[in-house]
């Protein structure tokens, strides 16, 4: 809380927490405050201890119940099968739609041919 720096402890709290990570240095104004403030010095040390402890949790791996792995693999198997079925159905649907399109095109072509023939017959008659 030293008043000489014009900065109060609550002004630097967020910066202390970020600085404890070690990537970003304290700004000059904050450093001046911390050098003169025992409370903020203690806070900085505590943040560093906290972050060290949190990082150490990374190496701890909880062992899941033995059933979890088969459960995940079975779920993937099921999803894989559904995907395969969907792919087959999609393929069939594409063939079906293609067939209808081809039949429609053939029908239209036939109609055009018939229409032109009947026109020609009328002209001859």
């Amino acid at each position, binding site marked *: 809380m030293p008043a000489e720096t014009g900065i109060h402890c609550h002004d630097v*709290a*967020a910066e202390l*927490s*970020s600085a404890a990570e070690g990537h970003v240095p304290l700004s000059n104004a904050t450093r001046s405050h911390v050098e003169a403030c025992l409370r903020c010095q203690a*806070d900085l040390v*505590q*943040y560093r*201890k*906290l*972050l060290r*402890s*949190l*990082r*150490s*949790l*990374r*190496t*701890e*791996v*909880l*062992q*899941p*119940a033995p059933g*979890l*792995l088969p*459960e*995940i*693999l079975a*779920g*993937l198997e099921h*999803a*894989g099968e559904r995907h395969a079925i969907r792919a087959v159905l999609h393929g069939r649907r594409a063939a079906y739609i293609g067939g209808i399109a081809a039949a429609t095109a053939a029908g239209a072509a036939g109609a055009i041919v018939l229409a032109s023939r009947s026109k020609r017959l009328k002209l001859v008659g």
Partner: protein
Amino acid sequence: MPAMTTEMDELVARAQEGDRAAFDELVRRTHADTYTLAYRLCGNEEDARDVVQDAYLRAYKGLKRFRGDAQFTTWMYRITANCANTLMGKRHKHRHDELPETVEDTDLARDPAAQADAMALRQDLSEALAELSPKLRAVVLLRDVYELPHEDIAAELGISETAAKVRLHRARLQLKEHLFPRRGEVDRAS
């Protein structure tokens, strides 16, 4: 590049080409790690199992989108965080948040005498983490334990980067106050 990473990269490449066995092997190698994060985020085994299951299904379906600019495990952390966030959001709609059980420490077979202080601090830390709200806990775990960048955390939790930073600061402050209570607070409590 470490041999383990190269092996993982090869498995990822094979899985991306449609090799299911390769993906199953990735699951075998990473599921305990993924489960640990899910358990820490959810605070109970049942939800953690659902989250892990969902996370691997999403990873399997989206594997082609994985560009390999991060490790596979890091990518799984992001998906797990997203799945846990979705699940916790649904839970929140249905009931008030309950205080989760304390996250258990695993026995790492270390020398108990040498590690006593650190273990005690970790135990306190586990309790303090369990007391955080799920929103604050997610941010501090992803940033300070799993070291994800702020922007990735924000993206997976569906919040702005600024909001993620604010939550992180609040979470750290609450954890610090739990672990290192000021003298006056201890006196009042005792």
